[in-house]
């Protein structure tokens, strides 16, 4: 039964800031966002039609074109590929007679790819109508295809198919400490706002999202900003290929996350919080909604939250919609306000001009957890662990060529080799720490440490053994950035595509020395001139690859100084199609080249 648009819009109080939520509900009801619905929606929300169309066009999970009744998206993460996802995808397309992204003629099925869905430890994975299925192998894919052939409604599929298990392998401070809900907030209240801010600053807590900004300084700046109301936002949009730790933190340690958000709200005097979770983690939404309801029922959220007179705070769950760039805090705020996720110009910063241009604290899931423990147990709880500049622990998503992929919590300062030993790795060729935007380490650098001033990590820790084709991985990472670039600034919008295409030719052995010079130059332009972190980091895979694995590149380059940038023979595909010829005379061969 299709839910009426008016009902959906009324449920969201005709608030254009809730556009991303509205579009999720429309997609659920109609399967896509039809063009006439866009027109009607724009008029109901009193916004220009182009605004709604632009938002639909921005997020990968929305479309204004009809899609298959079953929309299958294979996760195109680094580890999904290592696990054979491309062969599985091709098998499925061939089995249903599908070419590329097209929808089957009967409208039943479309098969495509989507960026890493965060099941790297239990992949390859896919999404069917937004629902994750992990652990794909030939048999499981066969089950999925049989269900689609039988046109079984999704609700009737075996629940076991959709099971996502938490996979925490090592616990330290954050994951081993039990905390009674409300205790950290009560401790903060006893200490008072100013002393809580000071305690968080003293703990040395730095943002776990990767940038490493001082949490105490961020909270203090927000608390001092003059405008009301203030907001607290938890960034659970982890989209870095290779990371999945927030998935397990939200599944198993949600109360500590919510506790930390409430501590932040108390410290900066915020009344409203948002928990922004990537749509790929749809399997967590009911759990999160239940946890929020339970905290409300227990008096931990709502008026006089945690028994603190005059402290009113509540948290709203918000969904992302398939856009890696929304992990950038100001793009996330744009998304929360119902717009395209374009990172804002700074200054001003979110601490003074965040959600709704009001002072806003935006922190990572893990940061809030650590802050809750600091509020309860004091600064020393972090100070006693880690290093001087990186206090506390880091939670890593370890995957790739390891025996025991999973979530590992280790003190900052731990060596890369120690992490490899914990997870069981041998014949290591390279380790990608913090995803494609992070650091590519060679086997000569395994004594380096996970810390803000050595190898910082937002969470991902992906291992490649010496059988992996590193150039194909670098190409894949470059394509990821081209797919996820928001397109706002020239260097990233154009540069990511240039790098991806050139890396494609290098990896497939169709490039010459000149191409290597070109790709490095483009990567440097992005690294200097881009608008936000995505573009500034998008050249990392190529630049670090060339720096650390130059012989691998050189071995794949053709001896020529320069080569045509296109495949002469492939460019004749269309002519062959039209003329119905495929004989040898209709092909260029290597020998034909001058």
């Amino acid at each position: 039964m299709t839910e009426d648009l008016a009902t959906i819009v009324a449920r969201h109080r005709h608030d254009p800031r809730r556009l991303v939520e509205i579009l999720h509900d429309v997609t659920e009801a109609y399967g896509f966002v039809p063009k006439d619905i866009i027109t009607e929606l724009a008029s109901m929300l009193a916004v220009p039609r182009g605004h709604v169309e632009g938002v639909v066009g921005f997020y990968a999970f929305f479309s204004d074109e009809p899609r298959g009744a079953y929309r299958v998206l294979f996760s195109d993460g680094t580890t999904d590929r290592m696990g054979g996802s491309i062969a599985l995808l091709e098998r499925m397309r061939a089995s249903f007679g599908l070419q590329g992204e097209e929808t089957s003629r009967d409208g039943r099925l479309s098969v495509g790819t989507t960026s890493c869905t965060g099941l790297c430890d239990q992949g390859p994975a896919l999404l069917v109508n937004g629902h994750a299925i992990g652990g794909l192998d030939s048999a499981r894919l066969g089950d999925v295809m049989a269900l689609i052939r039988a046109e079984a409604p999704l609700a009737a599929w075996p629940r076991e198919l959709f099971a996502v298990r938490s996979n925490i392998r090592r616990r330290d401070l954050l994951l081993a400490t039990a905390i009674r809900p409300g205790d950290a907030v009560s401790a903060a209240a006893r200490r008072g706002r100013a002393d809580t801010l000071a305690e968080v600053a003293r703990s040395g807590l730095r943002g776990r999202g990767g940038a490493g900004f001082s949490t105490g300084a961020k909270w203090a700046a927000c608390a001092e900003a003059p405008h009301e109301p203030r907001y607290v936002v938890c960034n659970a949009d982890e989209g870095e290929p290779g990371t999945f730790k927030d998935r397990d933190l939200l599944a198993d340690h949600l109360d500590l996350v919510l506790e930390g958000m409430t501590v932040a709200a108390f410290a900066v005097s915020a009344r409203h919080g948002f928990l922004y979770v990537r749509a790929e983690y749809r399997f967590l939404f009911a759990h999160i909604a239940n946890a929020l309801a339970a905290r409300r029922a227990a008096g931990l959220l709502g008026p006089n939250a945690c028994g603190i007179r005059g402290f009113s705070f509540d948290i709203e769950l918000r969904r992302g919609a398939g856009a890696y760039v929304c992990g950038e805090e100001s793009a996330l705020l744009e998304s929360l306000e119902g717009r395209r996720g374009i990172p804002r110009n700074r200054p001003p910063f979110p601490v003074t001009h965040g959600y709704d241009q009001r002072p806003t604290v935006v922190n990572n899931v893990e940061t809030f957890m650590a802050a809750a423990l600091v509020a309860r147990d004091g600064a020393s709880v972090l100070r006693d662990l880690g290093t001087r500049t990186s206090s506390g622990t880091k939670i890593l998503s370890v995957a790739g060529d390891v025996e025991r992929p999973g979530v590992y919590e280790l003190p900052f300062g731990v060596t890369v080799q120690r992490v490899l030993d914990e997870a069981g790795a041998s014949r290591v060729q390279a380790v990608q720490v913090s995803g494609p935007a992070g650091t590519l380490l060679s086997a000569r650098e395994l004594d380096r440490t996970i810390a803000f001033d050595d190898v910082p990590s937002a969470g991902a820790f992906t291992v490649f053994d010496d059988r992996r084709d590193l150039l194909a991985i670098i190409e894949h990472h470059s394509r990821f950035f081209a797919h996820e670039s928001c397109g706002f600034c020239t260097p990233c919008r154009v540069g990511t595509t240039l790098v991806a295409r050139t890396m494609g030719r290098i990896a497939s052995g169709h490039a010459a020395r000149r191409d290597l010079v070109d790709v490095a130059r483009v990567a440097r332009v992005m690294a200097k001139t881009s608008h936000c972190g995505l573009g500034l980091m998008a050249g990392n895979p190529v630049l670090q690859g060339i720096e650390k694995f130059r012989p691998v590149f050189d071995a794949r380059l053709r001896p020529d100084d320069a080569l045509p940038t296109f495949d002469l023979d492939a460019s004749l595909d269309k002519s062959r199609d039209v003329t119905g010829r495929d004989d040898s005379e209709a092909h260029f061969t290597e020998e034909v080249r001058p």
Partner: protein
Amino acid sequence: MTTDRRTFTLDGHDIPFDEGQSVLDAALAAGLFIPFLCHKPGNEAHGSCRVCMVRVGGRWQASCTTPAAAGLEVESTVEDLVAMRREIVQFLFTEGNHFCPSCEASGNCTLQAVGYELGVTTPHYPPFSPTRPLDASHPEMLLDLNRCILCELCVRASANVDKKSVFALSGRGPTKHLVVSAESGRLADTSFSADDAAAHVCPVGVFLPRGQGFRTPLGARKFDVEPLRVAALRRAGGT
């Protein structure tokens, strides 16, 4: 001019500024040129084209979105910065379909003029050659998106000046594109008029008035008569 205005330095020159002014606007007002594409002096900065990159105290920043502040040390006309700007302009020529010799906008085109200013002789990179539509639905104006550089000047002018919001952006990354705010996607089905500010702000040649091709001969056009930097400084100086 008062003598107690605060200043920053641009390539060693003292530049006075007003509170709230950007490095770019202050530099232009002081008679020093920094090339730019997506900005219209006097309006809110956008920061998307990245042609106006400078180095402020060693950090790379877009001069249009950097607030001027006393004591800043800004570098602009140094070889590596100019080379970076040249790259960005080459990226734009690579991305769209820009055929200057046959283009109606040649000589009036800011992208072309910035190219000349920076010494761009070729796009250098393999062209993307995108397939982009031509909207010939409107009686007064042709919309040729082949030339669009996604600067959003028309989007902003239509929303902020004309109060019509005829244009918007959709897609992202390499699929980002300009859309017309109508279910049909046709300009004729909007309230757009050739008198709109949005019709006269395009730095390239997306908006082409119908029925008057090549009215001004090549060689006698805007940037043929007055080079970009002279025109920009004259406008900023208010003369």
